[in-house]
């Protein structure tokens, strides 16, 4: 079974839920994945989730690790069971493609950023859209909650970063942050800082209370920034840039402390993640435009494993918050999500 036929199925007007139903049966071990270094391969493909029929833009595990949210150019947001790959539900409502999704800390709400210039908040409990945040004057490209989940931060093609009051659905601050589209924005672990990056090649750190710019990090060659996020302790920012490089910056000293290379990133804003689990072997995961996903050892900067299987550029990756599970998703030619498991994963009994 392959996902292209799935895509065709969807094109022949079968309701998405039904497609989900059939898709749930596709849980297969991929035999082609056994490459030469198979003996060292930590992550093995476990599930292929199909349902989206256009490029998948973002993947996020819920904070408790039970759900996986995905968004795509098909204007849909889908929620999957993170352990079984079963499709749970589909949220429809955006008028254009969805670029990013973010979970609230309690896992009850999901925020989505779309090309229809809006950010929507979806309730898992009510199973519906509960709020639309309007204000961006162009495509919204990235969105994230603060740890208390009373604030949202979003960025987009209007080159601003906006901070929203979630409860009232109002803009609190508009930061004239960059001179090109904002490609990623997020809070640090205690919510006092915001980091943003843009196609203008700058990474800026903001004081979230006052909205003041505290620091700007720029690489010598000024490459377009694809993605940025704080490390768990907020001492570093992890930045992927479109010179096919991922860098870990100590933003206090403006020094790059780690560089990761090997993947291809020239065109798209590829997502990059820290491994979510607390195990000692820390790693960095990123998608790549050569249809693969790469896993690096965080300390040695060596490529630990290349995840092969997708048939188009891998745009979105996500790491599970408690287990060593990796989720990857790719573009138009292969709009599937793949879940990669090491043998050590223990599925919690529910």
């Amino acid at each position: 079974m392959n996902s292209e036929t799935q895509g065709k199925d969807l094109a022949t007007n079968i309701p998405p839920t039904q497609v989900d139903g059939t898709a749930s049966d596709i849980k297969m071990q991929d035999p082609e994945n056994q490459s030469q270094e198979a003996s060292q391969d930590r992550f093995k493909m476990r599930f292929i989730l199909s349902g989206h029929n256009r490029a998948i833009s973002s993947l996020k595990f819920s904070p408790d690790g039970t759900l996986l949210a995905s968004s795509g150019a098909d204007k849909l947001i889908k929620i999957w069971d993170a352990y079984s790959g079963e499709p749970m539900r589909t949220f429809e409502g955006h008028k254009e493609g969805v670029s990013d999704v973010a979970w609230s800390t309690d896992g009850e709400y999901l925020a989505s950023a779309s090309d229809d210039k809006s950010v929507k908040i979806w309730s898992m409990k009510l199973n519906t859209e509960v709020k639309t945040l309007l204000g961006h004057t162009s495509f919204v490209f990235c969105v994230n909650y603060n740890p208390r989940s009373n604030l949202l931060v979003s960025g987009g093609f209007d080159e601003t970063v906006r901070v929203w009051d979630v409860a009232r659905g109002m803009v609190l601050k508009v930061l004239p942050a960059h001179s090109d589209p904002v490609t990623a924005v997020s809070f640090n672990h205690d919510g006092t800082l915001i980091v943003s990056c843009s196609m203008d090649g700058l990474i800026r750190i903001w004081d979230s209370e006052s909205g003041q710019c505290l620091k700007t990090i720029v690489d010598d060659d000024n490459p377009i920034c694809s993605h940025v996020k704080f490390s768990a302790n907020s001492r570093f920012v992890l930045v992927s840039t479109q010179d096919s490089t991922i860098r870990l910056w100590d933003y206090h000293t403006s020094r790059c402390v780690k560089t990761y290379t090997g993947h291809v990133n020239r065109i798209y804003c590829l997502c990059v993640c820290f491994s979510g689990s607390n195990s000692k072997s820390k790693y960095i995961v990123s998608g790549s435009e050569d249809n693969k996903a790469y896993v690096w050892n965080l300390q040695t900067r060596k490529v630990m494993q290349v995840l092969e299987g997708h048939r188009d550029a891998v745009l979105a990756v996500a790491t599970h918050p408690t287990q060593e599970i990796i989720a990857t998703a790719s573009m138009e030619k292969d709009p599937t999500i793949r879940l990669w498991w090491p043998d050590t994963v223990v599925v919690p009994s529910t």
Partner: protein
Amino acid sequence: MNEALISPFNITHPTTIQTPLYTYRALLSRFDPSGRFVGVGTFDGSAYIYDLDTRAPVRTLDGHVKNITSLDWSRHSRYVLTSSKDWNVIIWDLSSTCDPPQRLATIRLDAPVSWASFHPRNSQIILILTSTGEVYLQDLRPSYRERFELCEPQEEGEDEESGRRAAMTVARFDPSGKQIFVGTSSGHILVFNTRTRIMVGRHKTGGGTMKGFEFAKSGRRLLTNSSDRTLRQYNLPTYPQPGEGVLETDLEPTHRFNDPITKTAWNAMSYSPDGEWLAGGSADPASHKIYIWDISNDGQFTAALDGGREQLLHLHVRTLEALHLWHPSKSAIVSTALHGNIFLWHSPNPERWGAFAGGFEEVDENVEYEEKEDEFDIEDEEEIHKRKMKAEEEDVDVDAISDETHQKPQFLPQENEDDEWADLEPDDDCTSWKMKIILEASDSLP
């Protein structure tokens, strides 16, 4: 988290109004212990909880039918107590997932309540002052359930006339909760042991009727507000164990704070959390003035903050948590004005435009630039790359949070049997509780 990026050379006390919060006829406002919320009591009996991140009301505490007279937060902010002139004290649980939040308890008194507060260690022990001049210690713990009236013991041989009790006008727990301080209309301070309810101290002070008490965080300093329009700071003695007699002394103030020119009365006062400075709110009906005195500098008058023409009713000083992690001394004041405005005061950080440019350092004065020995050397690019890679071999720690010293302990250390007594049957007030975000009904939905 933003400490290292913000300039440390700042004035420690707030200087300007950051935001007004608009409410309907607010009477008082208090920061919660973490500085995330402000509790506001109003004239019509409603109380509101404001979120300081969004500066918007997030909860409405609708239960009283007359003026709110006081509002108190439990130590981890989960429970809120409101007292009112409608003879009730209500305890609210903010962890409940609805708005208005669940009432945990309603305590009904026999007179209008003029003040109530939680025990600093256990929110189930409550101190209540009524407007008729009585002080009650209410214990809500299931196995202790009782209401005890604190009375000044009558000495033998005193005749009826002089033995007539003076009304109690102020009552406060000290910061440890070990003692209860009661101020009377005759200018006395009575000290009771909380556990045994036995009087351990009695002080005579000048100044007439006591109007307010305020403790510095250490509990060794007491500030009183009296009817003679003077704030007095006292150093407190050590009190005997309950039952071992009563310490009877005349306390002499170490400092007196007043306005020598206008002789204004004081509506409110508050120490900064570090005890370094003191804020006094003037009762002048035509202005909103906050006086700041520098305690660490022998109580010198430092500044008068002017908040416009609405009379100040109440003020409270607090460290804001977001800043607290990095700026232990950075504080905010919340002050309440007569016609319902609430002002948040802060000390602003000057905008640093240099932060917008990468690799740009701002300097305060001109510096002669010294070229480094190898600064313009032409080096093989491969060499540079190699050196960079070598430097990157060092391990980095992306997980450990270094500022753990700032994390507040979940449990306070027990130092004596008074603490042990207070910790029996603890409340459910823990640091991990979360206030649920309740989304307002949206108009944009079809």
